[in-house]
């Protein structure tokens, strides 16, 4: 296994409040907060998906003390690539100065950065930069505006350097899973509105996320009560609370920034990790668990411990 050596994130400057988005979909700001835990999100104006990804990637490289020329691989997870091919990874790698490192796209919403971390930890022979970047504003603004979709999402990017030999978090174990039987329940086709069967998403996520976290913890002789910090995809505060309740722990153990940024899909878990990493003062050798769930459905969990 490998190490998580540094994190970074980038959020566009424009703040979109519940009042602004609510006015567009005839929704009360307080109702949006109650069903999602979101008060505001960020929308990029002139910045592209690649711009967001590059800024987060640069921050993660600086945090890890790695220069782009050292990178063995760059992975970019996104569900909002503006074109089918080439995906954003090659442009991001080129802009960062990582050429000729392999640039790999993970066209996965929400769970993409978790899959990227798990794969990178298994593959790393040199430093691998994993980025989750999303420009969801271009999606939620597609007509017809759907209230349940428009209120949730925001733009942003998060990144992590996975290193084979050093870093503050050592990767212990991971499990990543997929079930295409639910592919129609959350999907985005090019140029089309996002389609979401919210009941199915919540129902499946409420069961699958605690189950996969428990599976990874159990085989490492740990329980949820042993874990002080969970860094989960910021989909919905009510879902985060539900996962904590199912695991039998207080939801304050789940780092949350969804109130400020909304659901930034594949970027959200790494944005949360970056903010936690920058502020963390936890003692050595405490478990930290990452988890995510998204379209596909794809889901998984990754267990790390802080490393002196």
């Amino acid at each position: 296994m490998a190490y998580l050596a540094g994190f970074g994130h980038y959020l566009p400057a424009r703040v979109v409040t519940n009042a602004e988005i609510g006015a567009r979909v005839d929704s009360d700001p307080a109702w949006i907060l109650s069903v999602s835990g979101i008060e505001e999100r960020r929308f990029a104006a002139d910045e592209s998906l690649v711009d967001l990804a590059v800024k987060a990637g640069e921050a993660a490289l600086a945090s890890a003390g790695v220069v782009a020329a050292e990178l063995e691989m760059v992975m970019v997870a996104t569900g909002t690539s503006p074109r089918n091919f080439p995906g954003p990874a090659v442009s991001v790698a080129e802009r960062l100065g990582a050429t000729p490192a392999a640039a790999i796209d993970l066209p996965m919403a929400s769970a993409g950065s978790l899959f990227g971390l798990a794969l990178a930890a298994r593959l790393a022979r040199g430093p691998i930069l994993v980025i989750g970047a999303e420009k969801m504003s271009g999606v939620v603004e597609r007509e017809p505006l759907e209230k349940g979709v428009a209120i949730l999402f925001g733009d942003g990017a998060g990144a992590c350097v996975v290193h084979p030999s050093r870093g503050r978090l050592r990767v212990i174990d991971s499990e990543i899973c997929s079930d295409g039987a639910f592919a129609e329940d959350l999907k985005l086709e090019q140029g089309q509105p996002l389609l979401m069967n919210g009941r199915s998403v919540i129902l499946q996520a409420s069961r699958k996320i605690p189950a996969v976290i428990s599976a990874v913890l159990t085989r490492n002789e740990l329980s949820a009560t042993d874990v002080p910090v969970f860094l989960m995809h910021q989909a919905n505060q009510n879902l985060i609370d539900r996962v904590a309740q199912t695991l039998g722990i207080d939801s304050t153990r789940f780092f949350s920034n969804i109130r400020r940024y909304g659901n930034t899909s594949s970027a959200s878990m790494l944005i949360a990790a970056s903010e936690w990493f920058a502020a963390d003062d936890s003692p050595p050798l405490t478990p930290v668990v990452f988890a995510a769930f998204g379209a596909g459905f794809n889901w998984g969990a990754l267990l790390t411990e802080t490393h002196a």
Partner: protein
Amino acid sequence: MQTVAKRNVSPDPDESLFDSGLLDSFALTDLVSGLEAEFGITIPDRDLNPRKFDSINRIVEYLENQG
């Protein structure tokens, strides 16, 4: 249903539990867990289509099909 809806309810057997406001996404999760505990069964995730649990009659039909 009383437990999940957090009040005394007696829905019509064919009434949509979602449309009537008795169930929301998270309450459905509680309902499924309650059915598993009450009937001593494990409902596979693949069977968890919200439509299968949208009325009392549909829930009964699902449970009867489990034998």
